[in-house]
């Protein structure tokens, strides 16, 4: 069997997701697919599985044109994808979820559901994945890593000919990954084409035979994993050699007064209660590293009093924040990378988005909205246009300008550059640096270790703390802030 994708292009509005991407895979291969956020990995897999329409290009399977008008058609033709965002239904039991695809055809011809048969089908897979005990539970009742395994089982049960595994391991423990790996090897030996998407490069090297690199919607190239090392791969992904970043003179820890002491912030990761305390100095940049779901997001959210009040020591005084409004009034800022949910007012204009906080909450009218936007590097034609007329990166810059306009003391940034292109990213980093120099302190989570390394080099005073299972396992300064150190400590090697 042979899968060929030729010149695939896909745009979402003005955003180009894929631009002439090519991919050729033959039976018995596990192909890694790597690339930064927004490089088009997920879009490509959605197109293959039938969940998205392609604008241009063609797909051939064994030299026959392939076209899927819905995920169902994709599945009927043997292409199955596990979704990074999970395609599980939270109100159904694990066994129904696993059997949900082709529910009307499998489990016998009868119109009635045969619960025992459904469980019987599911249990074999669950046993293989070592999570037999969750069979009768609801998706809501099981933990995140188990949910990802269920998503995996749901794909396996469809007996795919081409299996796309999209970031299934990011929430898994080491022994789970081992199990997944063995299953994939077995499938490969049975002649199934596997496309494996992951941001953990060590897994790519362990599991895949070859790896294809995507950058900005283009396929950069395909490499045999035995002929390439991690650094080369990273340089293909980022499209540059070691970047010429502005390296600041590094200040010692403790040269400016502590502005924020978070006290012990309680966290709960994988049902384990922990707490984290962080002291942040004026003009300090604190990067937070760690794999997804290690408590760092909850920590940052707690500081902005998003879900419940918090008491912390701020500017030498004990302050209780009862909610985001209090935080805003105390000159905190919260920049989220999840623009849809936590960033933009989609129905409103660029200008309204930019002045939302300063004008309507803090009552300090912004005289020149255009200046504000230009300072953040937003490229736009008219501030009265709707914000969704901008590209993702520019939207994010508008969101950031909303907060820079308030001259915050503390900037809490939760993966602020998620899914935006490299140029926009640099603009965002530049803005952060300007804010630091004008007196703000920044606490920034990033899911991209490279970004942390890069930004901490840019900033006058910086450190990176690494979260693992709800605690800070390492604090890195200066030269120690490196990809190797971060990835080693974030997987628990410390």
């Amino acid at each position: 069997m042979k899968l060929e994708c030729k010149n695939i292009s896909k745009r979402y509005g003005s955003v180009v997701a894929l631009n002439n991407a090519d991919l050729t895979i033959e039976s018995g291969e596990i192909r890694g697919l790597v690339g930064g956020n927004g490089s088009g990995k997920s879009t490509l897999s959605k197109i293959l599985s039938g969940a998205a329409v392609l604008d241009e290009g063609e797909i051939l399977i064994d030299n026959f044109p392939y076209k899927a008008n819905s995920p169902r058609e994709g599945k009927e033709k043997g292409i199955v994808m596990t979704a990074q965002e999970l395609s599980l239904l939270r109100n159904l039991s694990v066994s129904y979820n696993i059997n949900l695809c082709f529910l009307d055809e499998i489990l016998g011809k009868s119109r009635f559901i045969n619960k025992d048969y459904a469980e019987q089908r599911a249990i074999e897979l669950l046993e293989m994945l070592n999570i037999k005990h969750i069979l009768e539970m609801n998706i809501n009742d099981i933990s995140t890593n188990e949910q990802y395994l269920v998503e995996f089982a749901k794909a396996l049960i469809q007996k795919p000919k081409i299996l796309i595994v999209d970031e299934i391991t990011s929430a898994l423990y080491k022994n789970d990954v081992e199990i997944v790996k063995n299953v994939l090897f077995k499938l490969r030996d049975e002649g199934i084409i596997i496309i494996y998407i992951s941001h953990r490069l060590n897994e790519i090297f362990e599991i895949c035979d070859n790896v294809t690199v995507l950058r900005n919607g283009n396929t950069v190239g395909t490499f045999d994993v035995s002929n390439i090392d991690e650094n080369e791969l990273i340089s293909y992904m980022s499209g540059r050699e070691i970047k010429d970043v502005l390296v600041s003179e590094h200040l010692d820890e403790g040269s400016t007064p502590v502005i924020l002491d978070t006290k012990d912030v309680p966290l709960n990761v994988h049902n384990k209660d922990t707490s984290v305390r962080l002291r942040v100095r004026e003009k300090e940049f604190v990067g937070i590293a760690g794999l997804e779901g290690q408590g760092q997001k909850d920590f940052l959210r707690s500081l902005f009093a998003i879900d419940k009040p918090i008491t912390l020591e701020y500017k030498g005084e004990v302050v209780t924040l009862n909610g985001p409004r209090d935080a805003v009034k105390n000159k905190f800022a919260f920049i989220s990378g999840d623009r849809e949910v936590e960033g933009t007012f989609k129905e409103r204009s660029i200008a309204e988005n930019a002045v939302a906080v300063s004008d309507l909450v803090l009552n300090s009218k912004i005289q020149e909205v255009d200046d504000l936007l230009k300072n953040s590097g937003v490229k736009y034609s008219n501030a009265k246009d709707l914000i969704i007329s901008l590209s993702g990166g520019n939207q994010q810059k508008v969101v950031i300008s909303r907060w820079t306009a308030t001259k915050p003391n503390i900037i809490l940034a939760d993966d602020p550059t998620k899914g935006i292109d490299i140029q926009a990213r640099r603009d965002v980093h530049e803005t952060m640096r300007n804010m630091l120099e004008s007196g703000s302190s920044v606490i920034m989570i990033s899911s991209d270790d490279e970004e942390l390394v890069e930004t901490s080099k840019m900033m006058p005073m910086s450190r990176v703390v690494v979260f693992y299972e709800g605690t800070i396992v390492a604090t890195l300064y200066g030269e120690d802030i490196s990809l190797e150190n971060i990835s080693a400590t974030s997987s628990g090697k410390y």
Partner: protein
Amino acid sequence: MLRKINKNNEIIRNFLPSIIIIVLMLLVGNILTPGFTSANNVFNIICKASVLTIVCIGQAFVMISGNSGIDMSVGSIMSCAALLGPSMTQGQNIGLLWSLPIFLILGFLVGVINGLCIQKFRLPALVVTLCMGIVVDGLTIGFTHGKPSLKIPDLLLELGIPYLGRMRLLTIIVIVLLFLMELFLQKSKYGRQLFLCGSNQNVARLSGLRVNVIVVISYGISAMMAALAGFALVGYVGSAQLFMADEYTMLSVASVVIGGTSLSGGKGGVIGGALGAFVLFLLTSILTVLGLPDGARIGIEGLVLLLILMANSRESKLRI
């Protein structure tokens, strides 16, 4: 194409369907019965639409507040105000001086209760306001014992009499009110905050806006407008009966939607609702002119509404 969407353009684009429909219907009406577009007839239709417009102003506030905001209690509040308001005045004009403010405040309070249930308990607006409608209806029955109100102040009755040329006094008042409320919605701090809340309550909260307060007030405004509309209705009709304004609930929702304000919140305005109200009453009057029986008229109205919805209220596709 997406890049070109300017906010102002979008407002015009939202109004365009209703304006086109209005022009078409006026033409059709004139063909069917010459004299349909006579000033007297048109201003009469506009006057009928004016009452609905008042309700639509409030309904628009609620729908802009997002979170599938809808106020299903407006009809009941209108009926209540129409029945109890005039009877409180003893038929004296001077009585309006206290009865109108009292009912506006009471209406506002009812709306605040709606809003509190919706925001604090996170209950669906549809159900809360439906139940509130039943409660208000119950109050009306309790206080009036189901009898129609007889004494209506002359001042109210004058609302439906031609004033400026063929224009009715009510229409003039409503037009002024409409522009004031549009100005309030688009320019005041509260209005701008409401748009942001409706667009994305989550981001609004993270930005430090008092989302609950803002949304609750929008329900208050809606109920207050409904109370005002009750007074207008009794003035226009000349008498008040139990449940007389029931149909205004869904009519107001339909008008606001036809006028380009979406149920998903965060955008729109109050002028669209006025256009929508005019569309609905224009349609009604064309169908009445045709001599269709009530049932056929209502049926055709439903059908036309369905067609309008096909043009402006479709949800996005699952396949992207």
